[in-house]
C-alpha cells in the first residue's frame, strides 16, 4: 500500500515538475529563437539547388547545425492520452518546431563564423533516438545542412 502511494506521489511530482519547469524552459527557448531569428535575417538560407543568377560567388563550403531535443514528462503523458482519442498532438508539434528552428539557427551561426554570407540547398533531417531500453523517446535529433557561400557583392539581403 505504501509502495502504491509512493508511486502515485512520485508520478504526480514528476508531472508537476514537467509541467512547470518544462513550460518555463520552452517559453525561454522560443524567446531566444525568435530573437536570434531576427538577428540572422541578413543571412539568406534557401533550398534552391543552384546559385541564383545574380549572386557572385567567391568561395563555398558546408555549414551544418544540429540539436537533440525532447519533451518533458507532463507533455509525454499528455501525448500518451492523445493517442487514445487521436487528433493533433500539439506537444510534439512544438517540440519539432523548436528543434528545426534551433538547428537552422545553428547552421546560420556556423556559416557566419566561417565568414560566409548565404546558404543554398538547405536540407533538414530528423531522426529519432531511442533510450537505453529501446522504448519511448530519448529525443529527436534534427540536422540542418547546406552549402554556405561567400559572395563578392553582398547586395543580396
Amino acid at each position: 500500500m505504501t509502495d502504491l502511494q509512493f508511486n502515485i506521489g512520485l508520478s504526480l511530482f514528476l508531472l508537476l515538475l514537467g509541467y512547470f519547469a518544462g513550460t518555463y524552459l520552452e517559453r525561454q527557448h522560443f524567446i531566444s529563437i525568435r530573437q536570434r531569428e531576427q538577428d540572422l535575417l541578413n543571412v539568406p538560407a534557401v533550398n534552391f539547388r543552384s546559385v541564383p543568377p545574380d549572386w557572385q560567388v567567391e568561395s563555398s563550403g558546408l555549414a551544418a547545425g544540429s540539436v537533440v531535443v525532447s519533451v518533458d514528462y507532463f507533455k509525454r503523458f499528455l501525448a500518451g492520452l492523445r493517442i487514445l482519442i487521436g487528433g493533433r498532438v500539439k506537444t510534439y508539434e512544438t517540440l519539432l518546431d523548436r528543434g528545426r528552428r534551433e538547428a537552422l539557427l545553428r547552421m546560420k551561426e556556423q556559416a557566419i563564423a566561417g565568414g560566409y554570407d548565404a546558404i543554398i540547398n538547405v536540407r533538414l533531417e530528423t531522426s529519432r533516438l531511442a533510450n537505453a531500453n529501446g522504448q519511448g523517446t530519448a529525443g529527436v535529433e534534427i540536422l540542418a545542412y547546406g552549402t554556405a557561400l561567400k559572395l563578392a557583392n553582398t547586395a543580396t539581403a
Partner: protein
Amino acid sequence: MIVTNTETVPGKTIVEFYGLVSGSTVRAKHVGKDILASLKNLVGGELKSYTDLLKEARQEATQRMLQEAESVGANAVVNVRFSTSSVTQGAAELFAYGTAVRVE
C-alpha cells in the same frame, strides 16, 4: 578541400570525377551521459550531451570521407549527404557520403 551539398562547386567547374567517397562511424553513448539525459528528459528541452555526441560523430565521419577523397587525389567533395541509422540499442551509425571531384 571544398565540401558542398550541391551538385557543383558554385563559381568553379568540375574537371574530373573520382567517384563515390564515404566515411562512417558507429557510436554508443556512455551510461553516465545516458542517466543525465534521462533526468533532463523529465523537464524536456535540449539534451546537450547527445547533441555534442552526434555532432562529434558526424565530424569524424566527414573527416574519414575527406581522407578518402584526399587519397584519390580530389580537391573537392560535392553532393554530400548525411544519414543516421540505429544499428542496435544505444548505438547509432553516422554516415557521410559524396562524390569526389577535381575543380578549377
